[in-house]
């Protein structure tokens, strides 16, 4: 307990509360709420039924109004706790509401209509998680397909990125071949060319190759990342050249040197690039939006955006699928956050 209070009350220099101490704690706590709050609210909302979502003010927990089937009525009727004029409290079902008067019946005795002022009744509610929000889009809509597509794109793009980038980085860090500086120049130059600048011609290249409406059309343009080549090269430069000489003396071919010596020794940098690549490719939106026009090929991001753009916005499904889309990235965050933050601080990579 002492530790906790010492931690919480840690101050500048220990000479009373300086305004910066107060500001620091204000910033940290507000930051905590602003950064995490929206995502928590999203998860929370995703378990609510459409009726609960439509409520204002919103509730913290997902409530559902209890309903019951009453003889003589087709639909189930919502239940309310009603304070009767004689002061007793009874559970009644609402038939209809006119103005401030609700017409209610006793489920035990459905023949008699009781008129109640809506001030005197409260809905009988219980906490219930609407897992159907998740099940339906995945089963009935195509979200399982979208999920598969996203996983395929992410995994394949990351594998190819790691392989081609590390091979190029190896050549650029450990060989002195002709044209090396030209290759380096090209890579630097294209750091300046973001995707949004070459949308139209890239689209025509993809179409000419027959990759329009193909997941490979999404994957291939993204894999030759200059940042990945740079980061790996930087790391490989720190591997001593004597190791490569030793391997050459050990009769290793150049390919074996790459595969058995360089790759294992570059593992930390490869891990960072792999994490980044997974996050990048999972999150990609604009390019898949352009390349994929057939619904069954959509990635999660595109599918979700299309779904959210429909005229009849079904928030309960959208929220649930947003959570699904967020899950892998949150897992990466929880387990690999340290890796990423040190990676960024070290290389300025994003």
């Amino acid at each position, binding site marked *: 307990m002492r530790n906790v209070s010492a931690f919480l009350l840690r101050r500048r220099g220990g000479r009373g509360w300086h305004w910066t101490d107060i500001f620091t704690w204000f910033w940290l706590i507000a930051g905590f709420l602003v950064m995490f709050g929206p995502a928590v609210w999203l998860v929370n909302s995703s378990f609510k039924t459409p009726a609960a979502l439509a409520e204002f003010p919103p509730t913290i927990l997902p409530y559902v109004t209890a309903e019951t089937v009453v003889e003589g009525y087709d639909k189930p009727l919502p239940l309310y706790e009603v304070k009767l004029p004689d002061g007793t409290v009874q559970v009644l079902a609402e038939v209809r509401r006119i103005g401030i008067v609700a017409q209610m019946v006793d489920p035990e005795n459905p023949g008699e209509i009781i008129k109640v002022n809506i001030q005197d009744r409260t809905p009988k509610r219980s906490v219930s998680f609407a897992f159907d929000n998740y099940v339906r889009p995945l089963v009935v809509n195509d979200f399982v397909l979208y999920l598969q597509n996203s996983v395929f794109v992410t995994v394949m793009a990351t594998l190819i990125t790691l392989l081609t980038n590390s091979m190029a980085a190896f050549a650029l860090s450990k060989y002195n071949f002709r044209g090396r500086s030209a290759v380096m120049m090209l890579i630097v130059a294209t750091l300046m060319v973001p995707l949004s600048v070459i949308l139209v011609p890239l689209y025509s290249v993809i179409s000419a190759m027959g990759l329009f409406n193909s997941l490979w059309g999404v994957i291939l343009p993204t894999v030759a990342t200059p940042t990945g080549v740079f980061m790996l090269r930087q790391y490989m430069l720190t591997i001593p050249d004597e190791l490569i000489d030793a391997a050459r003396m050990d009769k290793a071919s150049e390919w074996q040197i790459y595969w058995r010596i360089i790759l294992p020794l570059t593992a930390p940098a490869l891990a960072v690039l792999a994490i980044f690549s997974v996050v990048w490719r999972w999150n990609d939106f604009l390019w898949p939006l352009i390349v994929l026009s057939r619904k069954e090929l959509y990635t999660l991001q595109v599918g979700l955006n299309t779904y959210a753009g429909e005229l009849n916005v079904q928030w309960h499904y959208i929220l649930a699928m947003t959570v699904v889309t967020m899950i892998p990235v949150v897992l990466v*965050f929880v387990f690999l956050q340290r890796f990423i*933050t040190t990676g960024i601080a070290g290389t300025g990579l994003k």
Partner: protein
Amino acid sequence: MILAPVGWLARVLDPPLRALQRVGGRNGMAIFFVAPNMLIFGIFVLIPLVINFAYSMTGGGALFLGDRIFVGGEQYGRLFDCGNYLEPNSCREDLFWTAVWNTVFFVVLQVALMVGVALITALILNRDLKARSFWRAVFFFPVLLSPVVVGLIWRWILQRQGLLNYMIYELGFDPINWLVERNWAFAAAISVSVWAHMGFYALILLAGLQAIPKDLYEAAEMDGTRPARVFWRITLPLLAPNLLVVLVLTLIRAVQIFDEVYVLTGGGPGTSTLFITQYIYEVGFASLLRNPGLASAASILMGAVLVVLTLFQLGIARRGERRSAK
């Protein structure tokens, strides 16, 4: 166990690659190693980059370059056909100029807000905090979220009956239609993009702050320097290279703003959050009367701005290197 196929691949590939090495020599193998990356790079970056200029000089709706009609600088002329550049309505491509001015305002406001908030956050994270890595993670969290997720989260919170309006209502104010009123929607676009990316820049600045030697602060303390003066005379000058990098990076990314704002507002209400990238996307792909040549011309103009900004950044980086080399 996982490594079994890896070992297998190495064994299978070795003999043919050894043969290749015998033919091409060590430098031949170097070419072999750069080839896949450069091939992909060439096809999907370099070629599009080059033919982009050709596209911007053609007209019509056909996709393949061969089927298109050469029109020279007509597309550029169309973009610049304007009575008064400050007044998009007086322009032939009014949407383009709307997007340009929206982007300019967005860039100015967003970059200022982003750098300010990131700097404050980095300064606070650099204080003598316990559990610093926890707090660092807190601010970093949204950086990993996809733009679609970011857009949808905030659409949900900013909707008419959303959480924010409830909080405002509880405080006794009237709810605001955040995404329906022009200025509020623009403010939302800025705030949401700052929310989503601020942690990344705070991290770069934090790394810069931590690289400032502690003994400088101790020396300043021995000299009895006031904290504000320490900040202005020591922290800020020594952080300047990182600050410049952050400034240029935010600029470059702000110019290209699209994803999260597109999901959040769809460019609306009306055209109040229509930015350049969305304009290119809609002219080139989404609208019924698509005009790839016009989209290309607009993207080349945006590319030119980005190249200038990037060269600026590289220049800064080089100057910084030279200074640290001394």
